């Protein structure tokens, strides 16, 4: 039954692409600042919410959501970095991580207080009849989510690899004192990293809003999936985030279909465990070669 397996794989790739996008933003911030931003899910939730406002409430054109939401959430993230986390720069890692966790909870609860509802539905960008390929129904929305998320991811790889900003972040990650001595300011790189991470979270939100709706739970599910995907990929490179996200999505989908539908959440942690056993540094950690 190719059709059946096709459905399962397609669903896996679709969610995997979204996980990859979520992981990408986490990795960008981590790479530059060595901080795992646990507020990332809440940023994505805000992005999805902003997309609801633009598309449903204000009835603007859909492209406006794709255009406006990422920079808006990026600014929110950069502002929070400036206001809250900059003061914690000298604090230990644990404090910073806890701060991001509570920042995420505060954002999620602020949303809940202003919009006390279980779920806000956002229509899909494309609503035409599904494409049929070899008996497989592919909705236009599914095709768009997969293509859009992966295109963004590829753009990130290029920016990271060859862009000035990407080089600065990688330099910062490799040696923070060395990076300063090359003219990269910590404040500048951190703020840019948070801006880019926030923008990616916002974009994740816009892509995911029609797929899952907007709810407070979104914050948790995005950070969980993004974190697991990130760790699988090595939490170091955009390539890792993409492969980690896709692997996670496909594994979840296959396990739910062919093992047990209650296995879905369990499989992500199983996958995490297996990868960490086999390669503790993750699949795509950038390696320095011979150490001296």
């Amino acid at each position, binding site marked *: 039954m190719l059709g059946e397996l096709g459905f399962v794989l397609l669903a896996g790739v679709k969610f995997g692409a979204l996980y990859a996008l979520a992981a990408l933003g986490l990795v960008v911030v981590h790479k530059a600042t060595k901080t795992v931003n646990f507020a990332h899910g809440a940023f994505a939730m805000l992005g999805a919410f902003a997309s609801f406002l633009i598309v449903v409430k204000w009835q603007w054109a859909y492209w406006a959501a794709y255009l406006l939401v990422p920079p808006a959430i990026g600014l929110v993230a950069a502002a929070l970095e400036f206001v809250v986390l900059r003061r914690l720069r000298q604090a230990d890692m644990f404090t910073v991580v806890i701060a991001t966790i509570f920042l995420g909870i505060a954002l999620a609860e602020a949303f809940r207080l202003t919009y006390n509802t279980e779920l806000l539905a956002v229509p899909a960008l494309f609503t035409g009849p599904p494409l049929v390929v070899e008996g497989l129904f592919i909705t236009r929305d599914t095709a768009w989510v997969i293509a859009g998320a992966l295109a963004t991811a590829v753009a990130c790889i290029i920016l990271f690899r060859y862009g*000035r900003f990407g*080089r*600065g972040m*990688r*330099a910062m990650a*490799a*040696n923070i*004192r*060395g*990076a*300063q*001595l*090359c*003219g*990269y*300011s*910590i*404040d*500048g790189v951190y703020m840019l990293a948070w801006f880019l991470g926030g923008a990616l979270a916002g974009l994740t939100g816009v892509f995911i809003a029609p797929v899952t709706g907007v709810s407070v739970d979104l914050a948790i599910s995005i950070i969980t999936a993004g974190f697991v995907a990130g760790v699988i990929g090595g939490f170091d490179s955009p390539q890792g985030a993409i492969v980690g996200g896709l692997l996670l999505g496909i594994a979840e989908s296959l396990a739910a279909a062919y093992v047990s539908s209650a296995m879905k959440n369990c499989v992500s942690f199983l996958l995490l465990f297996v990868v960490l056993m086999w390669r503790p540094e993750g699949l795509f950690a*950038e*390696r*320095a*070669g*011979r*150490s*001296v």
Partner: protein
Amino acid sequence: MTALRVSGLTVTYGPVVAVNELSFAIESGETLVLLGPNGAGKTSAVEAIAGLLPKRRGAVDFLGKDISRLNASTIVRRGLALVPQWRELFRTFTVEETLVAATTAAVGRAPTPLAAVYELFPVLQERRQQKAGSLSGGEQQMLAIARALVTNPRLLLLDEPSAGLSSGITRTLIAAIRRIRQSGVAILLVEQNMEIARAVGERCCMLAAGRLAWSGSMQEAMERNEAERVYFGAHRHDDTG
């Protein structure tokens, strides 16, 4: 013109005073050697000047402008580059990527062309595509110096470039430092290795226990055996210069 004027510089780590009221100056194009035993505060002094360490007190003027409140990235953009003692390379970057990354710091002036630093250190050109982490110790030191040179500095701080390197490599470094000096860049060299100090230094300052113990011309220092006296503590109660 005075390239660098340090006055009353004090650096502390908690209650420990690493650098105590240090004052000296470097003229444009001059090479000054900072000598002193381990723990004398040499590294603390240069890192504080370069903005990597916070200063407790004191003024640092670079090309006539106060830089004592600026951070490291801004200072290097002004044209004061540091080659730190532990090199602080990006192990995951290739040689060429490292040098390209440093061009960021050349703000308002052209970065030194990569070809020029490759000419100074031909081995780096051979290793262009190699990861910095896979280079030998000597090559890493060359890369650290090359990285600082790419920023096209007016003043170069070199913190013990010969530490842990063979005498063959050391001679290469001496030749390179001489050529850098010839190009008009002022140099502040921190050294314990008298061979290098003698080969490139014009004037020298001796540090002991965070204080300036003696300063004068390199030649005078050699003649008077100042180094030994500093190292063996003869200057501790003798603050005459």
